[in-house]
């Protein structure tokens, strides 16, 4: 893999010229973000990984449309969000195993104690109850660190809508967050 000093527009240009290794570096940098975003939208880990792959594949085929003057992340995540929405439309007819408390606990994490697992489960439940756009906005803002403007570009909504979505989502997650904070304070 290439080192981190190669800029994303350069990697995208190389990948557009057919350099799969350069694209692999972009997948390495954005893979986790793309998978979390797809999981946020679909609430199903397996479907989410397939959607994230679909998104990367679409990005690879349409790299010519990427504007190197803009950040790569929001452009890619917009494609991943579309791929996830497309997969959700196609799966409507079949039963799905949504992101459940057990699904969240099933994923191997750094902590193994019961408290942390219970807190993660509570978060999974609260997250699942949020409207999809609020879920997406809060994950892109508080987990991935994107600005309101960048999230607005990903979701194709006005910036004010993103601010409102983040606010409402934070308010809805207050209870599990308070429990998480309490647990962190006890840990410290």
């Amino acid at each position, binding site marked *: 893999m290439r080192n981190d000093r190669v800029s994303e527009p350069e990697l995208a240009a190389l990948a557009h010229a057919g350099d799969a290794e350069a*694209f692999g570096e972009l997948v390495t940098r954005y893979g986790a973000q793309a998978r979390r975003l797809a999981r946020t939208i679909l609430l199903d880990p397996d479907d989410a990984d397939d959607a994230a*792959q679909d998104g990367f594949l679409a990005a*690879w085929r349409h790299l010519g449309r990427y504007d190197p003057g803009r950040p790569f992340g929001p452009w890619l995540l917009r494609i991943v969000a579309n791929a996830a929405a497309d997969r959700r439309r196609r799966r409507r007819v079949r039963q799905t195993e949504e992101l459940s408390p057990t699904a969240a606990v099933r994923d191997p994490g750094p902590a193994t104690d019961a408290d942390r697992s219970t807190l993660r489960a509570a*978060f999974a439940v609260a*997250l699942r109850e949020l409207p999809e756009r609020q879920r997406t906005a809060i994950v892109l803002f508080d987990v991935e660190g994107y600005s309101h403007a960048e999230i607005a570009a990903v979701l194709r909504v006005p910036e004010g809508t993103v601010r409102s979505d983040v606010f*409402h989502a934070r308010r809805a997650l207050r209870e599990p967050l308070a429990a998480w904070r309490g647990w962190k304070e006890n840990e410290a």
Partner: protein
Amino acid sequence: MTEHSPFDHTPDPILGEALRETLAVADDIGFVRQVLERIRAPQPWWEVLGEWARPSVAAAMVLTAVGGFLLGRLIGPQRAELAAGPAIGLEVTALLTEGGPPDVETLLGDGSQ
């Protein structure tokens, strides 16, 4: 620990950590490998067809619209003539508009009344 308000316009690191764990993704290397395998594999014919479907449908719609317009202009004068129709005698008009049964003389007449 500083309490973050929903109004704050900066990311909340504690909330971010909690959400990150909730949405935990594993095996990044395996994911990268799968993506690279897919981009190196030849594109299936149905996907190629699917990519062309939308522009093809759009092109077909434009061609149909242009063709329809040209055809309309070409046969426009002929349609006007057809719309005018042949000269119909007063007797026939009377037959079509009268409420009662037609007059036998009119029906069998040679139109020279």
